[in-house]
């Protein structure tokens, strides 16, 4: 109950600040430039059907991209973190490619693969891949040697070391990077959807209305925020299920 009240209070504070900003911006410019939260929310209700269609299109793209990134980057990151010889070979490749602004490749990808959903998903997955890869690799490098020695002395194979030690020990850090990836993923999805200009998705919806129907565009931004919030809550629930040991009452 206390948690729900905290959420309600946070949202109320956010709406208050947003409303104040809206009043200030509109007063300074003598025009209705920044819609307030209630204008945006009323547009969410009025455009529910259209928003829902675009919301679902963006949601599945983002979720699919996150799953692809997670499924590919996690094993690669964990192996690189534990296998020094492989890491020595691949680390320079990661260091060179990680800082490249992947957004610069969007137009190239659209030219080569078209502007369909597949390209947008691939774009977001590509960005998140590096985020998760770097976290998984770092987490696997920092595993307490005693845990590895412990299972090796009990007769574990190499694969069992990964399953019983490397993966669970790295999981909290990987899930944190997934959380960070939600914001990054939404940002890149927006860019990919607006670059494509056509089709469905919240990015398309926002872009379409930003010039002449700003309160509708802000309804789309609210929908994107809701998408992020839902994913954050889902990741929290998954972490509580998979990392139960972190939520028990610790003995001082």
């Amino acid at each position, binding site marked *: 109950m206390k948690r729900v009240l905290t959420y309600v209070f946070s949202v109320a504070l956010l709406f208050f600040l947003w409303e104040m900003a809206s009043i200030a911006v509109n007063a300074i410019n003598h025009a209705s430039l920044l819609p307030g939260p209630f204008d945006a929310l009323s547009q969410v209700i009025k455009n529910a059907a259209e928003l829902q269609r675009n919301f679902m299109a963006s949601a599945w793209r983002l979720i699919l991209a996150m799953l692809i990134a997670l499924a590919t980057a996690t094993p690669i990151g964990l192996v690189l973190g534990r296998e020094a010889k492989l890491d020595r070979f691949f680390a320079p490749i990661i260091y060179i490619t990680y800082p490249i602004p992947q957004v610069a490749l969007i137009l190239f990808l659209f030219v080569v693969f078209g502007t369909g959903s597949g390209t947008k998903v691939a774009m977001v997955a590509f960005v998140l891949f590096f985020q998760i890869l770097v976290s998984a690799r770092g987490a696997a490098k920092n595993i307490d040697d005693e845990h590895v020695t*412990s299972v090796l*002395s*009990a007769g574990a194979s190499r694969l069992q070391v990964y399953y019983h030690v490397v993966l669970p020990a790295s999981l909290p850090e990987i899930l944190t990077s997934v959380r960070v990836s939600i914001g990054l993923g939404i940002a890149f999805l927006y860019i990919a959807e607006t670059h494509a200009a056509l089709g469905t998705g919240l990015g398309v919806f926002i872009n379409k209305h930003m010039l002449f129907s700003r309160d509708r565009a802000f309804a789309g931004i609210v929908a994107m925020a809701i998408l992020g919030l839902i994913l954050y809550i889902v990741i929290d629930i998954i972490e509580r299920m998979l990392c139960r040991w972190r939520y028990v009452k610790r003995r001082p």
Partner: protein
Amino acid sequence: MIDLQAVTIEYGDGQQAVRAVDNITFKLEQGRSLALIGPSGCGKTSILFALAGLLHPYSGTITIGGDRITGPRRDVALILQNAGLLPWKTVWQNANLSLLLNGDYPERNALQVLTHLGLESVKSRFPSELSEGMKRRVGIARALSTAPSVLLMDEPLASLDTLTREKIQDLFLTLWHERGFSLVLVTHNIEEAAFLGQEIIVLSERPAQIKTIVDNPEMGQLDYRDSAAFQAIMTRLREALEG
């Protein structure tokens, strides 16, 4: 019988190789206990890990029961400094780790040991919920779940308060009498070596070499700490370490 013949252990290759253990030879009959004592970082843990099959000597041979050690064995158990418990596994999963990994140990072994050590009521808890003393007990339960013939211990009681340490030392002694395994203990604690070692090997600074071997025939009783013989052994060990 545990048999080490001219064992030398090195880390690294070529010119960068660091010698941790230099030409160590000793034997231990089945069912007896041995303490390896020496200054911190002298290489005593390397000897223990070589016995556990976790690292291979640069030269020399190690056999247990006549078989050369080539890797971890199901009849050799190792207890690590901080019990080596996995924080993400429950007490039961930790105690039953060998079954989990190898699938060929009866579950009842771990259950019996947990019950014997008074841990049955906390078997679904995680290690972070336990006191340090209880964590060490879970480490012991894990080691004993495979009914080993050799129990190796690497500073198993480090960082425990005096009373808890003495209680667990008493527990080790009782279990050693009950179960008849060979016990090899690595420690830098003179009192621990004198209480648990029938034979005590005093090692030099790195690379570890045998300085002297002290016989401790009167050990084995819980009240041994109160005896004059215990004090005499402690004095001999202190002199050997300082000398």
